[in-house]
């Protein structure tokens, strides 16, 4: 039951270049999407989110794009910095969940090379 999929377990990018992390989902009842970043031995920290009524949300170096028809979202980090090296989780929130739980993907480990 993989409702949220991150098909790339890892990604390496040179410092200063763009990092693109992808996420696919299967449930059309998801109406809110988030990206969390996780460093080793720490909990996930919120990065950026997007509502299903939008197709883009930007916050500094981070931009999330949502393609509802393709059930796909992506996180762009530009320019990438070594401190961005972490595991990135895509998460979705189903509108049918009264408790607003999150359903997470398996994560993509980003390594930004100096």
């Amino acid at each position, binding site marked *: 039951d993989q409702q949220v999929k991150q098909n790339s377990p890892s990604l390496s990018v040179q410092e200063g270049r763009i990092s693109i992390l992808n996420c696919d989902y299967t449930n059309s009842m998801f109406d809110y999407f988030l990206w969390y970043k996780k460093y080793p*031995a*720490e909990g*996930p920290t919120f990065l950026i989110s997007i509502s299903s009524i939008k197709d883009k949300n930007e916050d500094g170096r981070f931009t999330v794009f949502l393609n509802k028809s393709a059930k796909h979202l992506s996180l762009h980090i530009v320019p990438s910095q070594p401190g961005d090296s972490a595991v990135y989780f895509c998460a979705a929130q189903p509108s049918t969940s009264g408790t607003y739980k999150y359903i*997470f993907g398996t994560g993509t480990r980003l390594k930004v090379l100096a």
Partner: protein
Amino acid sequence: EPEVTQTPSHQVTQMGQEVILRCVPISNHLYFYWYRQILGQKVEFLVSFYNNEISEKSEIFDDQFSVERPDGSNFTLKIRSTKLEDSAMYFCASIQGITDTQYFGPGTRLTVL
């Protein structure tokens, strides 16, 4: 900045033993969650808690699991009789209002031997 805290950071236990994982959510938050992450896998929802009762639980959250908010600040997850497959990172999260994003604690690594 306020944060969610969890204790202990690492708990080692023997199979069949009971464990209690503790969380202190952010003080004015009202909704509380437990998630877990088995090594190398995704973060999975276990249970949500609001107004002193469970509001939703996953299939993973069987009769061996229970949650409690014993004193208005702590939020605990109890596993009554641990199994090897309970070995995972357990994350607590909280939010003030339903439209907020969830704040996660640093996690407790549970190792069942």
